C-alpha cells in the first residue's frame, strides 16, 4: 500500500484498487509523474477505509480481486456497493477499471453507480489519465454548484 498524507495536490488524489502489482507500478509512476496523489491497495477492507478517511477525488476499481487466500473473486462489486451505501463516500466518483468486457458487466457497474467503465486492455495510461481528469473536473463542478 502506498499512502501519502501530504496536502492534496491540485490535480487530485486517486485511489487504485488493484491486485496486479505491475499495473499498480505503472499507474503509480505515471500518475505521480503527472501530478496526482496516488494511493493503492489490493485489499477490499483496506480500500473501504482509505476511501472513507483519505477521501480520494476518484477511485479506479478493478473488479476481479482475489481474496487474501488467493481465490479469484469479483470483490470489486462488494466494494462498489459498500462505497455507494456509505453517505460519507457515496459522492466519490468510481471508475470501474477492469478486464471484463461483457455488456452485462458494463450495465451492472452503471446500475451500481459507477461513473465510468474503462476496459483495461484498450487504454494506455495517458488515455486513462485524460478520462480521470475529465471525471474529476465534472465532479468538482458539481460539488461547487451545491
Amino acid at each position, binding site marked *: 500500500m502506498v499512502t501519502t498524507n501530504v496536502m492534496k495536490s491540485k490535480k487530485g488524489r486517486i485511489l487504485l484498487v488493484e*491486485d*496486479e502489482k*505491475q*499495473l499498480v*507500478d*505503472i*499507474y503509480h*509512476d*505515471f500518475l505521480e*509523474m503527472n501530478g496526482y496523489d496516488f494511493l493503492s491497495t489490493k485489499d477490499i477492507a483496506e480500500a473501504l477505509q482509505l476511501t472513507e478517511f483519505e477521501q480520494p477525488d476518484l477511485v479506479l476499481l478493478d473488479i*476481479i480481486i*482475489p*481474496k487474501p*487466500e*488467493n*481465490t*479469484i473473486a469479483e470483490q470489486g462489486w462488494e466494494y462498489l456497493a459498500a462505497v455507494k451505501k456509505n453517505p460519507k463516500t457515496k459522492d466519490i466518483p468510481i471508475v470501474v477499471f477492469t*478486464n*471484463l*468486457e*461483457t455488456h452485462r458487466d458494463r450495465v451492472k457497474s452503471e446500475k451500481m453507480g459507477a461513473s465510468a467503465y474503462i476496459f*483495461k*486492455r484498450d*487504454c*494506455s*495510461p*495517458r488515455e486513462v489519465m485524460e478520462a480521470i481528469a475529465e471525471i474529476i473536473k465534472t465532479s468538482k463542478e458539481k460539488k461547487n454548484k451545491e
Partner: protein
Amino acid sequence: MPEGEKKSEEPVGQPGCLNKNCWLAKTLNHSPYSRCQYCELKFHQCIFLHYQIISIVLISLFLTLFFLIEGRVSELVIICIFTLVIVYGYFLNKSTDKIIKANFAQREAKLALEKLAEKLEERVDEQTKDIGEKNKYLEELLNMKTDFLRVVNHQLNTPLAVMKGYFSMMEEGSYPPAKARPAIKGGLERISSTVSDFWDAYELEGEKMKMEPQKTDIAQIVNGLIPEKQNLQLALERKLKIEVQKPEFSAQARSAFGGEIPLVWCDYKKIAHVISNLLDNAIYYTRQGGVTVFYELVGKNYLKINIKDTGSGISKQDQKKLFQKFSRLKNATDLRPDGSGLGLFIAKKIIQGNDGEITCFSEGADKGSTFSFTLPIYKNQKLTSEGEKSPIKEEKIVIFGKNN
C-alpha cells in the same frame, strides 16, 4: 351369447358392454344376428326399433284402409303388404347392420387412439424428464464454460493490459525502456504459457497429444525442480519447506532396479511438466508448513510419486471434481490467480497417457492433501513400431463436467 353376458358388466361405451335396453340385443342376439355386443345405441336411438314401429304402423294403416274401402281385405293385398314389409325390413335391417358396424369401427378406432394417446403421453412425460435432466446438465456445463471463459478472458487480458501500459509509456518517452522491458517480457511469457495450457487441454481432449516415452529418472526431475520452486516468491514469503524424503526400498528391490529409485518409462518432458504443476499447486495452497515428495512401489511394476502438502486440503466432495476440465471448486481455494484452471486436467491426461494413474488424497478441508501418480518402471520397454503407442486406453471421449 355367454361371452356377451359375461362382459355385460362393462361400462357403457366400452367393448363388451351389452346395452340392456337394446331390443336387438335382448331378442336377436344370436347367430346370424349376434351383433349387438358393441352396439351402444340407446333404446330410442335403435334404428331396428324404429323400423319395427314403422312397419307395424304401415301394416295397420294399409289393413284399415283396405277394410274401409272394400269392406274386406283381399288376400293379395295382405300378401303384397307382407312381402313389401319383408323386403323393406330386409333393406332396413341391412342398413342397421351397417350403422352398427360403422359405430363399432368408430368405437374401436377411438379406443385405439385413446390408448395411443395414453402411451404417447407416457413417452412424452418420460422424454420430457430426460430432456429436463440433460438440459440441466448442459446448463451446468454452460455455466462452467462461461465462468471459465471469464477467467480465461481475465487471464489473457491482464498481462496484455500491463504490456500495453508499459509499452505506451515507453513510446511516449516517459518511461525508460530498460525498466519496461522485463515487464513486457514477463507479460509475454504469461500469455504464452496460458495459451499453451489451453492448447494442451484442447489437444488432450481429442487425445491428439502423442507421448514419447523414454527411460526417465524421476528423481532427477524432482531434484532439479525443487530449488526452482523453493525460490518462488510465494514459497519464500510463506517460508515453506520443500523437500524430498529419501526412499527406503528394500535391498532386494534396490538391486533389482540398480539404484535408489527405479527408472520409469514415460514422456520425460510432459511428466516434468506435471510434477512442476503439482509442486506449484502445493505451494499455492499451502499457507504454512511445507511440501514433501516421497516415493513408493506399487507391486513390481509401478513407481508411485507422492507430493504431500500441509495446505488447505480438499473436501471429499471436491476431490471428485478435481481432475475435471472447467470445474472450479466451490470452497475457498478454487483457482490460482494466475492459473488457467486446467492444470490438473492436463496432468491427469498426461499421466493416463503414460499408463499411470493420478489420485488425490485429503482428509478434508485444512488437513493438507497428497497428490500421487504412478508410472511404469522401466523394464526394457521399447517404442512400438510406429513409435506411437496409443497410450490412452480408457475414456475414449472425455466428457467434462461429468463425475468420473
